[in-house]
């Protein structure tokens, strides 16, 4: 368990200082972030060697990554060059990779800008497919803006092979509802360091499903802040880390505004030698805010020996006016009692195990409201399960 678990003391006085340690770093200037050496709190779980240079930014040049967008009526999509004033308004990069990707994505092409018109309620999801075409290095940028009172679903899919770093901005304007399904379905050798920065407006609702199955190393940092009261963010995550895969998810919810709600539930399974999953769940409840309702939960299921989980919830509270704040983390094997119940109905042990394991995944997958995606994700989970059953 991390040393910084629990409630932090708050240093008063220095007006210039950010309130929270978790939110200290934020800058577009790459030089504000020293090259990580692996001992920093935010890098200590990541095997830097396997980032293939993404963390220092040297020689990022020869990758080819394409972006294909399919948008229904009510949604426009276009590209925008680096420097376009619409880009980078909703966030400050929080680490070196994010700052590098924002500074240099222009060398690899233009940013993708998707806009859901105000009040639009497109019947079909927007599909943004990001495909790496060879094992080279590249940066990217995506901006999704959901207009006032719109209601839309965006499917962000990563596939193919690349060493890739990107920033994705989700701006959910007042009263809008945006559901994002981010599917990291990379080929086995791919490396991906991604940041997803979300701003949730007044009475707006953001729902995210992060599903990470592929890659050699995937490190995703979804960050949520609020721009108005009544904002609601639900972050659901599912990862299945196979032999030798490193899957790292680092969520940060910054309750910087009163009367906001968040739920973070990430669950994962690990199977095979060297499978490594990291979950860092940071929640800040800001000074002077009231009525925050927050809960985060991480569960991990080890299906074989030789796997490793690091699960670290961090909760920093700077106000006494909290409605609810909590976290839970549990890692372990299959539940004996689940198996007992199924077996007491005659179901043989092997099959009971299969049912319980599939149920573990299905519980989250069933919440995804895009049927074809549900089936596809379940099929891929099946494929991975088959490797060790």
């Amino acid at each position, binding site marked *: 368990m991390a040393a910084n678990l629990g409630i932090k003391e708050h240093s008063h006085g220095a007006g210039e200082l950010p309130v929270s340690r978790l939110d200290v770093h934020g800058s577009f200037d790459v030089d504000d972030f020293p090259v990580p050496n692996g001992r920093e709190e935010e890098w200590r779980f990541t095997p830097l060697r396997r980032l293939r240079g993404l963390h220092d930014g040297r020689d990022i040049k020869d990758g080819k990554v394409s972006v294909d967008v399919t948008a229904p009526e009510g949604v426009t999509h276009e590209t925008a060059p680096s420097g376009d004033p619409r880009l980078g308004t909703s966030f400050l990069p929080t680490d070196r990779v994010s700052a590098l990707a924002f500074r240099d994505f222009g060398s690899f092409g233009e940013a993708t800008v998707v806009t859901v018109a105000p009040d639009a309620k497109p019947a079909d999801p927007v599909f943004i497919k990001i495909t790496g075409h060879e094992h080279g290095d590249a940066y990217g940028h995506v901006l999704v803006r959901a207009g006032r009172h719109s209601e839309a679903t965006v499917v962000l899919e990563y596939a193919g092979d690349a060493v890739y770093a990107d920033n994705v901005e989700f701006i959910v304007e007042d009263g809008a509802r945006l559901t994002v399904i981010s599917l990291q379905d990379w080929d086995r050798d791919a490396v991906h360091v991604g940041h997803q920065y979300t701003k949730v407006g007044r009475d707006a609702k953001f729902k995210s499903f992060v599903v990470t199955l592929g890659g050699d190393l995937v490190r995703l940092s979804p960050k949520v802040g609020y721009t108005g009261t009544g904002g609601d963010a639900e972050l659901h995550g599912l990862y299945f880390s196979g032999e030798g895969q490193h899957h790292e998810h680092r969520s940060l919810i910054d309750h910087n505004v009163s009367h906001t709600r968040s739920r973070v539930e990430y669950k994962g399974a690990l199977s095979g030698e060297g499978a490594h999953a990291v979950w860092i769940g940071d929640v800040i409840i800001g000074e002077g805010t009231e009525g925050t309702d927050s809960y985060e939960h991480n569960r991990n299921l080890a299906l074989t020996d030789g796997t490793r989980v690091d699960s670290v919830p961090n909760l920093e509270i700077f106000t006494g006016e909290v409605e609810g704040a909590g976290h839970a983390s549990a890692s372990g094997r299959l539940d004996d009692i689940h198996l007992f119940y*199924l*077996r*007491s*109905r005659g179901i043989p042990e092997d099959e009971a195990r299969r*049912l*319980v394991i599939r*149920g573990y995944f299905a519980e*989250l997958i069933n919440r995804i409201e895009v049927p074809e995606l549900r089936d596809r994700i379940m099929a891929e989970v099946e494929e991975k399960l088959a490797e060790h059953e």
Partner: protein
Amino acid sequence: MTKFEIRGVRADVLIGAEEREEILKGVDLTINSGETHAIMGPNGSGKSTLAYAIAGHPKYEITAGEVLLDGENVLEMSVDERARAGLFLAMQYPVEVPGVSMSNFLRSSVTAIRGEAPKLRQFSKELQGHMKDLSIDGSFAARGVNEGFSGGEKKRHEILQLELLKPKIAVLDETDSGLDVDALKVVSEGINRAKATHEMGVMLITHYTRILNYVKPDHVHVFANGRIAESGGPELADALENEGYERFVKAGASQ
């Protein structure tokens, strides 16, 4: 004709890696098909432990004695083999298994017990019939096993499984607890239907005599301090209703 014999069974509850405690201290009981045996007793007397130990719950270990189903040694069977041999345990607290749909679970279970997969249409009709009998809404089939069910819903689902699986011996562990009168009637009717449609021996574990107004026992046993303290006919239940368990609790304490 089935004969279910419990002979000199002693069992421990496993509390921790090193810690265990003996709960059953020599239980003898024989149940023939067609018979209903009520096991009554105060809280903590070991009634539920008897049920779980027979079913093979991982938290309990039988340390002595034997359990025979038509002469076959049940204790040598795995949990699922016991069920396939014809034992059924309706649990006091049925387990929630997230993400596994009730319909998928029931089909797997019926397939395992019957030895072949039922025809889909036939099975669906059979299931719907039983659900209607037990006033279970059709939408439950799509939900996770016991997931978010109320206490009463879970109990009705246990009886649904009893009716589907048609065991030789049914152990019903406090199926009546936490039920209102209407739900108790629905559940009791289910038990009586199962008794009528196939030859079944019933071990009905209960704290209260209330359910015995609906499910008539042939034999009543008082369970106290990990063993059967007294056996009799239905009239014993009436005596318990009037006198309570005090006599048995005291007798145990003085031993």
